[in-house]
Each structure stands twice: as C-alpha cells, then as structure tokens.
C-alpha cells in the first residue's frame, strides 16, 4: 500500500536528531519507522509518522526543511525467504528501488518494509497482483 513519508534535511551535528524527535513529541506525533542516510556533513532523515503534514509544519517552524512524498509499505512474511520473495516481484518487473528500510508491524507474522520507487502507484498494483498481497494502511498509521 501507499503511505506518506516525511523526509527532513539534517546536519551532522550533535543534538540535531533529538531536536527533531522533541518537536514531534511536543506535537503528539508518533514515529513508526525511521531511517537516516548521511554523508560526513549532512543527511536525510526519513520517517513514517502519524501525521506527516502536521510534522512538516511543526518542523518548519523550527527551521527544519521537510518534504512529504509517497512511498510503498510492503508486508513481508516473517519467515526465512520472505524478504527474497517480495524482492523478486520487483526485480522481475525491472523496478529500481531508490532506498528502503524496515518498519515495525503490529500484524502478527508480518514484517513491514518501506520502499522508495519512481512510480509508487504502478508498483503498488504490481505487488497487489502478486500472492503476497498488501497490508492494511491502519496497521501502519496507528502504531
């Protein structure tokens, strides 16, 4: 399924990460998944949160630049080979994954992966037509 992700620009300086966490906490925004890609000087922090647009506004007020984009959340069978099977669907169809990271799942026996691809809508269709199916959106936003 498609979910909205918030990405923010973050300088590699002490305290920046906790600053962001603090702003989100003050605004009652929960983080259910998080990944940081960085260089020596800066990075991009990507998060799945309860209300990405509210998060963007709250962070902007604190001088943090953010962008809300659509990514894919894919449920994967929590057993050996589960991840491989999910990936095969994408590689067989020539889909390039820009980045991905894991997300907590409250659905028993399933693991959740967040994937960034060029055309999330098309790729979603591709996945729903595969045997693994999709996960329930509320399972993510609620966490």
């Amino acid at each position: 399924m498609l979910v909205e992700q918030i990405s923010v620009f973050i300088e590699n300086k002490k305290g920046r990460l906790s600053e962001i966490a603090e702003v989100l906490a003050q605004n009652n925004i929960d983080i259910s998944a998080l990944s940081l890609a960085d260089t020596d000087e800066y990075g991009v922090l990507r998060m799945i949160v309860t209300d990405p647009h509210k998060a963007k506004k709250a962070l902007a007020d604190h001088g943090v630049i953010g962008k809300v984009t659509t990514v894919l959340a894919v449920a994967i069978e929590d057993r050996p080979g589960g991840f491989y099977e999910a990936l095969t669907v994408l590689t067989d169809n020539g889909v390039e994954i820009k980045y991905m990271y894991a997300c907590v799942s409250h659905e028993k026996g399933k693991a959740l992966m967040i994937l960034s691809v060029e055309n999330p809508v098309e790729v979603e269709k591709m996945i729903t037509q595969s045997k693994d199916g999709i996960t329930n959106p509320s399972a993510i936003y609620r966490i």
Partner: protein
Amino acid sequence: MAILHPEIETLPREEIKKLQSEKLVWQVKRMYENVECFRNRMDEKGLKPEDIHGVEDLAKLPFSYKQDLRDYYPYGLFAEPLENIRRVHASSGTTGKRIVVGYTDNDLDMWSDCVARMLKAIGLSDKDIFQVSFGYGLFTGGFGLHAGVEKIGATVIPMSSGNTSLQIQTMVDFKATAICCTPSYAMYLAEEVEKAGVKDQLSLKVGVFGAEPWSESMRHEIEEKLGIKAYDIYGLSEILGPGVSCECEYQCGMHVWEDHFIPEIIDPDTGEVLPEGSTGELVFTTISKEGFPVIRYHTRDICSLEYAPCKCGRTHIRMNKPSGRSDDMLIIRGVNVFPSQIEEVLLDFGGNEITPNYIIKIDRVNNTDTFDLDVEMSESMFTDDLKSITKTEKAITEKLRSALGLGVRVHLVNPKTIARSEGKAKRVLDLRKL
C-alpha cells in the same frame, strides 16, 4: 642603491607638477577625440579639453570605474586603433565578466621601465638571476616582471607559478638571486624550503611580492625563512599591472611613478578630494599610457599618500599599503572575488525562489587561504534522495569553481542558521589575521 633615472626620479616636486600638467592636457585631448565613454562624460559635465590647463584642473574631470571596462568590453575604451595595440592582458578568474586592457609599444616600454626602476631601487643589477614565479598569461604579473628584469640586464628564469618542488630545485640549481610571486605563495615556498632543509643552498637575496594583501609579520617570516629582504610591489591591470608603485630600499611606502600616474585620495562616498595625508580611496590618472588610458579611475583600494621626500632621494609620492577596500571585493589566494558572483551562481539553485542564504568564510591556515561557503538548504534544493542532494552540492561547487577560477568548499547547512542582520545577512566572515 642605484637610481635608474635620477633626472626623473629625483625631480623637484614643482617640476613633477609641470611635467604632469603638460601630459595631462595631452592625454585629455586625445582621449576626448578617441574614447567615446570619456567624451560623453566630459560633455555631460559641459567640459571641453581646452578647459583643462594642468593638474590644478584634475578634480574637474569625470571619474571612471571598473564597470566601464565591462560596458565597453572588449576594446571600447582603447584610445589607439588595434593595429597599434601590441598586447592585451585580461583579468583572470571570472568568466563572462572579464576585463581587457591593451598596450602599445610605448606602453610596454614604459611598463618595463617602471619595473626596472624598482629592481634598481632594491639593489638588483645585470649580475642577478631573477626567478619570475608570477603566473604567465592573461594575468599581468608574469610578463610584467619579466620585461623589467630584462630591462636591467639581469637573467630571467620564466618559471611561472605552481609546482613547488620544481620551483625550489630551480632556485637552487640555477642559483636564483631574486624571486617574485604572491606573498602567500612566498610563505608556502619558505616553509617547503625549511622542510627540505635547503635554505643554505639558496643564493636568494631579495624577493618582490604583490598582487594580494600581506602584513608586516608575513614580511618578517618570509625574510627570516628564506634569508632575503622582501619588497612590496603594487599595481592593477587597469592602470598598468605590477609596477605602478613599489618600495625602495627604505621600505617606507611605495613610490608612485608620478611621471606616468597621478594619484589622488578621495572620499569614496562623496567623490571629494581629501586633504594631503588623509586616508581614503585611491584614484589614478594615467598620463603617459596610449593604448588603454584612464582618467581618475577608482581603484577601490583604501590608503594614504606621503608627500615628503624619501631618504632614498626620490621625490615621487609614496603610497602606504592599502588597508582595505571601498567595495566588497575579496582577494582569496590572489584571486579577486565579489560576493555578487557567488550570488549569481546560487540563484540558479534557488528555483523560482530567492537566492539561497549563504555566508563566505575565509581563513588562513598554514599560510594558505581557506575558502568555505555555507549555503542554507532550501525547499527547491531538498529532496528525500540523498544522492540528488550530493549532486546539487557538487554542481554548486563546480559552477563556483568555473565562475570564480578558484576552488571552494561548499557546505549545506540547516535553514535559518546563518545570521541575518537588519534583513541583510552578513555575507563574509574573514578570519585572516593580516
């Protein structure tokens, strides 16, 4: 020390004024006939060449500016037809906004003579071997010094800039007795000589340094480490190149060769000529130059003039080392940089928004200028993809390098982290202690 032309260099001041007056009248007349920009400005003031009788009328004449060279690029300000222009030089570094100057045979002869006067004044002769480590090319440094060295009959090593180990080896092997380069490069050379432990193999006696700001403490360090006497030379290509003024053996200001150049000190805000001894903006009128002459040209350098005769016997005015600029030009590793050039490049990365906020940070580490640029991240530059941000950062770095002719380290920083004062941010943090 020797004086190359005692009859000119020790001419009584009254005589200098007479000579300047004659030459000024000549220059104004021919420029009025040959240079459209100058003629227009004279007409605007209702002035005719006949109204100028001598140096006492200098302050009536219109000013000229660096912008004129851009507006009339490339040859629009030349006062001689191109067949009489033997050589051109141009500002290095900036692309698109270069300035071009031209020299006739007489100009080249006068230029080399100005440099030769200095070389004599600091004790050089035909017995010397002079390593020219200024860059050769469109920059005036290399060719300017080269011709002066030839004029005094010394031997030239046309080394040009760069390749430090080869510089040192050449100095040692070819027994160079004198060298010229930028002062920061001299500091670097001095350290490398110290590291290589070859100071006692050097034959160097003197160094001629210029083209960027330097301090007395730098002078002492260069002198100490290379075992030489270090002299200051001043010039800018719009006036001549190196050799407009230079120090004599007494190192008490730089003698301006007044038979060719008339200096004035003005208030940069009002344009009023300031009383003798005041500090203000240095303005030059070239009274001998044929190819590219200027009247009351704004150098943007802030300094003062000494009128008293020098201990060396010369009567020509001495200018003190410029203490700053009346514009926002920075000299980084010998290259002129204007914040507006950086702004222009950044504008391309701001999307349809305003220019990204930035701050220029300059320091001097191990005698070399460091040049860093913090750029605030903006909506238009940010994406969720780290690779494309890194790509943007590299693109900014590359564009700046080609626009400035100088390497810069770009850092992307959080928005609103660069201080804004009264709406207009302080754009430059210069930590160099000169």
